[in-house]
């Protein structure tokens, strides 16, 4: 996730990462990770607290004023934390957004390919 500060809006964080903030902490599938109260500040969520608790690497590119928060680690040791499919939203060639959950009720074969 690309950020330009170390505060992130909850809905943006949830949408991008698939983690949901519940009373018991950050949850994804059957996993919940407790979060300290200081994860919230006046402007949103503290990225450093999220990074530490969820094992998400935080890479800074100071020259460009950017950060990238990587995916969680230390939970399953795998790319998947849960078998629940992420509700990813991606555009078509014309830029129209499409959410994977639009296809709920059908089987889906998601195929990753590339021009290269």
């Amino acid at each position, binding site marked *: 996730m690309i950020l330009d500060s170390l505060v992130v809006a909850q809905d943006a964080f949830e949408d991008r990462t698939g983690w949901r903030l519940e009373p018991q902490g950050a949850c994804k599938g059957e996993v919940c990770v407790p979060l300290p109260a200081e994860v919230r500040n006046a402007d949103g969520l503290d990225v450093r607290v999220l990074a530490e608790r969820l094992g998400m*690497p935080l890479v800074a*590119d100071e020259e460009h004023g950017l950060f990238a928060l990587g*995916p969680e680690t230390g939970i399953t040791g795998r790319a998947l934390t849960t078998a629940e499919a992420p509700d990813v939203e991606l555009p078509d060639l014309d830029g129209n957004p499409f959410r994977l959950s639009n296809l709920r009720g059908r089987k889906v074969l998601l195929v990753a390919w590339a021009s290269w």
Partner: protein
Amino acid sequence: MWQELRSEVFPRGLEIVTVALDVDAEQARPFIEAAAPEHPALVDSAHLVDELFGVVNVPNGVWIDEQGMIVRPAEPAFPGRSPVTESFRTIDLSTLPPDIADVLTEARKIRTDPEQYRAMIDDWVEHGARSRYVLAPDEVVRRSQPRASAEATAAAHFELGQHLHRAGDHAAAIPHWRAAHRLFPSNWTYKRQAWNFEDPIRQGRTDVYEGSWYDDVKAIGAENYYPPVVP
């Protein structure tokens, strides 16, 4: 290829969603337009599906059931045919420049089993949740790609790189993509995407990156380029 499959399986309850891992969406356009897909054909410039699903090479398929549960995690996927790898075997190497002939000689060792994957798809369409190829949730997680700090950090670097490239600063992407390659050497999408910008035809050795398709694949043996699909 996928549209052909889609026209057969869509009436039986399976939709295909193609996702182009192209940082520059316009590179995917000619292929998508030629296919004239009826299914969603999406573009993933940030390679989010690498991070979210554990994709490390293309083509890869993920099976998702009607309730939104992944029932097979990302693995090599071919829709009954693999025209690109077929073409490696039929082309006359003596007509090619030596360096390209070397690449294809190695590439001929790539193993795919398109018929097997097609049979698995047909079985899933036929039997749904009772298909023997449908996996339980903890097996799905277990079979997804290993991810520790290095791989996750690679994803962060790759994402920064594509963000900077798309903002118009390609040179700023390079150190991030070099870091991604170093941290996650078995992720072919990070490598091939980056090499493609510098040398689209050969993805060969350049001053920009430490590896090349030929060197990196030969180091592991092209027979290991795609892991075998385990039913």
